[in-house]
Every structure is written in structure tokens, then in C-alpha cells.
């Protein structure tokens, strides 16, 4: 086996942070890995799934993060090391279980890798998961490099077994989705034996009382604090008595080093990098704090480390009055992601230095040219995306219906339904499954004069993850709404992972398919299926469903994601604009196909003043043929 699972100690590889976490778990000898996909965490499980056969692993895409955590815990209870991975939003889903698991404890090494997304590059929020480690009294590790991601992931299992409890490994986008050099360690033997010891005391927190378990957990945390004093992931570089001490963790470390190098401030600034950020190695931290008067805390999002350091400092007051710089002082923003330049700016302000990345004339010119010349570019539905056609049908339906219908939604590619290429149709978007929950509530407001039709959209993967309970809620409460399931055959947003509606599991083995249609029918609902590319048919079916009343109804708008299909087969059609038929700017349509339908495969040719197909982009779905009022777009079947 080559690649990530290569048994080649001391060789180096270029690895993505998430691959490095997976490698660390392999080196720790895990047997089970489970997750629900979510960027920036998805590649951890994808990587492990690829080596499942060779490394004797069981790897699954679970239905949601809570179940994933439960699946991993089951392995730990039964003497098998396990990894669970999720993004920050997923942690909230798993939290109900986690906040009891920490008290019941586990057995074999159990690591939760949670990948945060400072700046919300691919998320609906930038929640800082580290607060959960403190809240649950669990050890927290924060890698700064791909190498550390690998080494810490492995070490986390030892730490977990030291206290028979979960260890949290917190990564961020710039670690998870960066690639760096990793030197491999050894892989252990692949034999594992699972056995649940029924003679031991139960994994539960009742009986002796949860407070007792909590007390025991806090004692374990003291042990971790001691271990962290000599952990290999905490280090200091700089003068003995720095004028300014930067205390940093995670992605902040590289930015701090770079800032100091660029400012040539190595003689006056020291950097204390902490990899074990909860519980803090207090003696080590105090030792360094006592060497300086000025401290700058460099970390992303919430002032977590900063707050914990200030707690320490409060215990040392009044003998040692430090000046703290960081998020509270305004030197480092408490939102968005960090950059080297943010740290450079903070250090120059604190030390009274001057720095300009470029001379001001160049800077001004570059801003002026880019502002004047470069058009904005935001995310949009891909060419051939079945969501575009479904939202087009929804928009038409709501116009025809004329009662100001409200469409709610949630997370997935179709979240772009709130934006331009989804024709601004989606009016609420929060958590997985929230669309249906909110619809269930809206559909009960008729007693207050609410007379607008209610619709909600969810994806096929979201349906299994969190929509089902909300739908059942709507049935039992006799709420009045239409659930539109956008079934594009996979978890598209995060990289096309399978879910219970797909005939294959994470490891590529055949798996039984849960039929969404039958499932809804089994709940006693009226279920209508439509082809997402059939705009007219979908509009008619939806209009009929909208006019029914009294309980939830389901429309399954089905068509495989154009990107998944394109990996497998050729385009359906060769599409072109018939030049003689397109009247161009003379047509009353005012560039309807380009301006209103908004498929990136359709562009406006300024020279000919007509619509044109961009053959480098067009996916060949042929749907726009039905949109042009002049029937000027032509599709020919590709043999």
C-alpha cells in the first residue's frame, strides 16, 4: 500500500492536514472511524475509508454527527480505538451525547477531531469549538502544522486512554485544507479484538450521581494538566526576557513566526506556542509569563486562550501586572480568520514599529485598477445543476399561486437558494433540518390569520440527517406545508459522499438503500416524484400540492448532481444557440436566458449581441432549451 497508509516509517509525504490526522489515527491503530461529512473535516474519513481494507478498519458515513460519535464510542467501550470527525456545526448535533459520554467515560482510545472554519469559508458560522472542551472538562489539542496534525492525532489516543475518556483534536480550515511535509511513523499490527465487558460497571451517569462522575472527571483533568507540562507540542523560541511575548496556538503560530521574521523582531519578541490548550500547562505558561511584561495572544475567532491566560494571571496578581494584547484590546479581531498581516499589524502597533507591505503608490494603484477592472465573482449553482431548475419551478409556482408562499431551507448546495442563482427563493436558512422545523411551525399559524402557503426544501442527505424528526413533528401536529426533497443522489456540497439513500457505503461496499419515497409514504404522506429537469411538470405538480391542505405533503425533485454524472458519462446534449433564431437585444426578452435563468454555461456575446453557449462550461443538460421564449436554443442528442 502506498500513499497515506504506506508502511514506510521515516519517509516523507506531502499531506493535507486532514490526511495527516487520518494517518495519525492509523499509526495509533484505530479500528473504527465514523463521521457525517462537513467541510473542512470531510477528507479525514474519506482518507481512512480508502485504506479500510488494508488496515482492517470499519469506516462509516453515519446519518449524523451524534450517531457517528455513538458508533465511535461503541468501539471504544469494546476495546477498539476509534476516531470520530466532524465540522463545528456538527459538534452541536453530537453535544447531547458528548455531554454525558464525558461523565460515563470510555475505554479504548477515543478521539474527536473537530474542524472549525474561521472566516466561515465553507460554513454558515465560524463557531469556536474549543469552548466545548472547557465546558465538558475534556483535553484539547491544537495542531499548527500537518506534521503536528499527524503526531497529535496519534498522541491523542494515548491521552484518551490515560483518563479513559474522549480527547478532542481541534483543527481549522488552514490546517485541515493545507498541505505540508509529513514524516511518517510506524504502523502497528492490524489485528484487533472487540469485546464488551458486561461485568464492569455500566457506562452511565446515574446511580452514584452525575456530580460524583463530574468530580472524578475533574481529577482526571488534573492529571492531563500535569502531562501537558512536558508535552512535545508546547515550545518557546525567542530571547530569555522578551520585550513582547506572543502566546499562540493552531494556525496562529505560522503567522506569528512570519510576522516576527518580516519585522526582523527576533531579538525582542518571543513566541510561546501551545499545542495543549486545555487544560493549560500552567507551570510552563507561568514560567514564560514571568519573563515579560507584555503579552500578545494570537489565536483565531474566540479569545479562548486569552481568557484562560487571564484567569491564570488573575491568580498571580497583584505581584505581576501584565499588559495583555489580543482580542479584548482590539489588536487581533475576534472574528474572521487570521493572516500574517494581521499579526504584523498588531506587533507594529504594540512595539511602535513601522511597516508597509508595498510602497503606497503601488498599493493605491493596485486597489484602483482592481476596483475599476475586476468584476465580483460569487458562488453559484454549477452548469446543469438540478437545483437551479427546481428553484426555477418553485419561483414559477409561487408566482402562479400568488399568495406570497414562504419557502424555508437549510444547509447544502441548495442553501444558495437564498442567492441570485436560486432566484432568492429561500427565506430562512440555519441548521440541518431547520427548514422543515420552521415550516412545521409556520404551518400552525393559521389561527393567527396566517394564510400564506408554506414550503420547505432539503437535500437527500439532509433528509436523513435531521429532516425526518421535523417532518414527523409536522405530521403529528397536522401542520400545513409542502416538503420538497432535492434528491441529487449524494452529499454534493461536501464531495459526493454516500448516505442511506445510496447503494454503497463509505468503504465502497454495497449497502441497502432506504427509499425516500417509500419512507414518506410509510408515514402516511402524499408523495409526488418529479424530474428536476422537467420545469413544466415540476411546476404543475408543485402547484397541485400547494393547493392541497391540512397536513405535510412531499415532492421529491430527483436528478443526479451534474458533477457526479459528468464523472461517469458524457453530456446528454450538444447545446447551441441558433444564430438565426436568437433575436438578441432586439428580442423583448431582455436577455432572459442569461440575465434571469443564470446558468454559467450561457453567456452574452457582446459582439454579436446574442446569447451564446460557453462550450467550456456547458454541461449539456439541455434545460435552457425550455427557457428561451424564442425557442432559439437547440439541443442535439450526443450519440
Amino acid at each position, binding site marked *: 500500500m502506498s500513499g497515506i497508509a504506506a508502511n514506510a516509517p521515516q519517509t*516523507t*509525504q*506531502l499531506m493535507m492536514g486532514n490526511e495527516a490526522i487520518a494517518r495519525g489515527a492509523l499509526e495509533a491503530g484505530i479500528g473504527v472511524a465514523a463521521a457525517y461529512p462537513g*467541510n*473542512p473535516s470531510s477528507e479525514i474519513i474519506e482518507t481512512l475509508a480508502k485504506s479500510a481494507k488494508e488496515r482492517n478498519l470499519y469506516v462509516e458515513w453515519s446519518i449524523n454527527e451524534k450517531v457517528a460519535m455513538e458508533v465511535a464510542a461503541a468501539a471504544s467501550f469494546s476495546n477498539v480505538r476509534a476516531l470520530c470527525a466532524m465540522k463545528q456545526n456538527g459538534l452541536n448535533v453530537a453535544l447531547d451525547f458528548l455531554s454525558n459520554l464525558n461523565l460515563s467515560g470510555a475505554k479504548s482510545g477515543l478521539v474527536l477531531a473537530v474542524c472549525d*472554519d474561521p472566516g466561515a*469559508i*465553507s*460554513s454558515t458560522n465560524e463557531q469556536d469549538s474549543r469552548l466545548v472542551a472547557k465546558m465538558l472538562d475534556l483535553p484539547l489539542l491544537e495542531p499548527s*502544522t500537518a506534521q503536528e496534525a499527524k503526531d497529535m492525532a496519534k498522541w491523542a489516543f494515548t491521552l484518551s486512554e490515560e483518563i479513559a475518556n474522549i480527547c478532542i483534536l481541534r483543527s481549522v*480550515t*488552514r*490546517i485541515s*485544507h*493545507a*498541505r*505540508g*511535509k509529513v514524516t511518517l511513523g510506524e504502523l502497528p499490527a492490524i489485528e484487533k479484538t472487540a469485546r464488551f465487558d458486561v461485568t464492569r460497571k455500566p457506562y452511565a451517569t446515574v446511580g452514584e450521581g452525575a456530580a460524583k462522575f463530574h468530580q472524578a472527571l475533574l481529577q482526571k483533568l488534573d492529571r492531563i494538566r500535569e502531562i501537558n507540562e512536558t508535552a512535545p507540542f508546547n515550545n518557546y523560541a525567542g530571547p530569555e526576557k522578551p520585550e513582547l511575548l506572543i502566546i499562540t496556538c493552531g*494556525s496562529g503560530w*505560522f*503567522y506569528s*513566526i*512570519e510576522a516576527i521574521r*518580516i519585522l526582523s523582531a527576533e531579538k525582542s519578541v518571543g513566541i510561546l506556542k501551545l499545542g495543549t490548550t486545555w487544560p493549560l500547562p500552567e507551570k510552563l505558561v507561568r514560567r514564560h509569563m514571568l519573563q515579560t511584561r507584555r503579552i500578545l495572544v494570537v489565536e483565531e475567532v474566540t479569545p479562548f486562550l486569552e481568557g484562560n491566560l487571564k484567569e491564570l494571571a488573575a491568580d498571580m496578581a497583584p505581584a505581576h501586572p501584565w499588559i495583555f494584547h489580543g482580542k479584548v484590546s482590539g489588536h487581533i479581531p475576534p472574528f474572521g480568520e487570521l493572516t*500574517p*498581516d494581521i499579526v*504584523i499589524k498588531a506587533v507594529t502597533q504594540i512595539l511602535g514599529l513601522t511597516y508597509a*507591505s*508595498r510602497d503606497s503608490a*503601488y498599493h493605491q*494603484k*493596485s*486597489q484602483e*485598477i*482592481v*476596483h475599476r*477592472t*475586476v*468584476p*465580483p*465573482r*460569487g*458562488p*453559484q*449553482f454549477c452548469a446543469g445543476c438540478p437545483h437551479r431548475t427546481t428553484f426555477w419551478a418553485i419561483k414559477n409556482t409561487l408566482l402562479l399561486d400568488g399568495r406570497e408562499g414562504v419557502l424555508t431551507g437549510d444547509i447544502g448546495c441548495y442553501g*444558495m437558494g437564498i442567492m*441570485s*442563482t436560486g432566484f432568492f427563493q429561500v427565506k430562512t436558512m440555519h441548521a440541518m433540518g431547520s427548514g422543515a422545523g420552521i415550516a412545521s411551525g409556520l404551518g400552525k399559524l393559521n389561527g393567527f390569520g396566517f394564510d400564506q402557503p408554506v414550503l420547505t426544501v432539503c437535500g437527500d442527505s439532509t433528509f436523513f440527517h435531521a429532516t425526518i424528526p421535523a417532518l414527523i413533528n409536522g405530521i403529528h401536529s397536522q401542520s400545513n406545508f409542502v416538503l420538497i426533497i432535492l434528491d441529487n443522489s449524494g452529499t454534493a456540497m461536501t464531495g459526493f459522499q454516500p448516505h442511506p439513500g445510496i447503494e454503497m457505503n463509505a468503504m465502497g461496499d454495497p449497502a441497502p438503500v432506504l427509499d425516500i419515497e417509500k419512507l414518506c409514504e410509510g408515514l402516511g404522506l402524499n408523495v409526488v416524484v418529479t424530474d428536476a429537469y422537467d420545469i413544466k411538470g415540476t411546476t404543475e405538480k408543485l402547484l397541485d400540492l400547494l393547493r392541497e391542505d391540512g397536513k405535510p405533503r412531499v415532492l421529491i425533485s430527483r436528478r443526479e448532481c451534474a*458533477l457526479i454524472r459528468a464523472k461517469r458519462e458524457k453530456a446528454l446534449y450538444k447545446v447551441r444557440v441558433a444564430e438565426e433564431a436568437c433575436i438578441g437585444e432586439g428580442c423583448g426578452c431582455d*436577455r432572459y436566458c*442569461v*440575465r434571469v435563468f*443564470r446558468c*454559467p454555461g450561457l*453567456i*452574452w456575446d457582446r459582439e454579436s449581441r446574442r446569447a451564446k453557449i*460557453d*462550450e*467550456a*462550461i456547458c454541461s449539456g443538460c439541455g434545460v435552457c432549451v425550455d427557457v428561451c421564449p424564442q425557442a432559439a436554443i437547440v439541443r442535439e442528442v450526443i450519440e
Partner: protein
Amino acid sequence: MSPEGRDGINLIITGIGGQGNILISRIIGEVTLGQGYWVTIGETYGASQRGGSVASHVRISKTTEQGPITPEGGADIVLGLEPVESLRMLGLYGSPKTTVISNTRPIHPMAVAIGEADYPDLDVIKNGIRDLTRQAWYLDATEIAIGLGAPLLTNMVMLGALAGSGRMPFGDEVFERQIRAAFTKEKLALNLKAFVLGVSTIRNQGSNPDVNVNKRA
């Protein structure tokens, strides 16, 4: 090391989601690591398959490991898979020392399609780039890729252009070795062809790219 003599090269590969930006950043990373350099690649994606701007920061050094984000004004080379994206990168990361190697084939953002913004003429883009860089090479990589039967090969043509530019500290033969290792047998021939065409297209422009003589002094 870098043409300016300092340690390290910051290469930013920019384009649109779905253009295969990440694949070529990875090939460059593997090549660089194989040549005994430190390399860190920072990638921005997530919504990347949905048509937004995508950039990979490839940070190369002989002596030290660096972070995943290039500091402002720190780009030595911008490899642009789409022309306005090349120019966009210069706003934050460009300096008078930057070299641009850019595809000339536009991909219109939605704002242009719906008439809320204009897509500039190629000459306007080139003038902007000339004002903000030390030198620039241009090629219609998409046209070359379409000529090979697959517009998706645009990224490999651009990788060839980078290798052929002589701006990297190792030659195109090292890239070629890595490409041979990176693709399955069925996919290798076409990808290699695209790469070689990229190399030769840039070489044929000789040592006379679009140079800003004022800046070079």
C-alpha cells in the same frame, strides 16, 4: 533560489472552482518536496465547485516551513487560470517583483451575465497587469485544451506554461516525471500532451514576454 535571490518562492495559483486548480497545486507541491524543498500549500475551497474564485498558495523554501497564507505583496508568481482572476490576485498579493502567467480565456462571473458588471477587454486586463508586475506571459490555454478534446485540460496546459517559463527553480523534466506518476495509464497521454503544449507555447514566446520595462529597471 528565487530570481530575486532571496530564499523561497510564493506561487499563487488562481482560477474558478472546477478548473482543476488543486490538482496542479498538488503536482507542484510533490515536485517541490521531491527536490528537497519545504513546501506548504494553502487552499481555499468549500464552495469551490460552485463557481467562486479559488486560490492555492504554494509556498516554497529551501530553509524553512512556512504558513498557508502568503503575506500581502508577497506573490513572486501568479499562475492564473482565468484572466480577471490573475489581476484580482495582484490587488492583495502583487508587487513590482511579481510575474504573471495567465490564461486569456474569460469565464464570465454571474454579475457580468446578468448585466450588473462588465467583463473588461483583454487589453484592459493586460494593461492592468503590466502596471502591477515585472513581467507577464499570456496564452489561450483553454483553446489549446479544447483542441485536445477536453477543456478540463486547461490546468495542465497552464502547469506546462509555469514549467516552461523558467521561473521555477527546477526544469520541466522534473514536472514531467511527477505527471507520469500522478495519472493512471488511460489519463496520462492527454494530460502529458497538454502539459508539453503549455511548455512549448511559453517557450515559443521566447524571452520576450509582456515586460514592464519601467518596473524592471
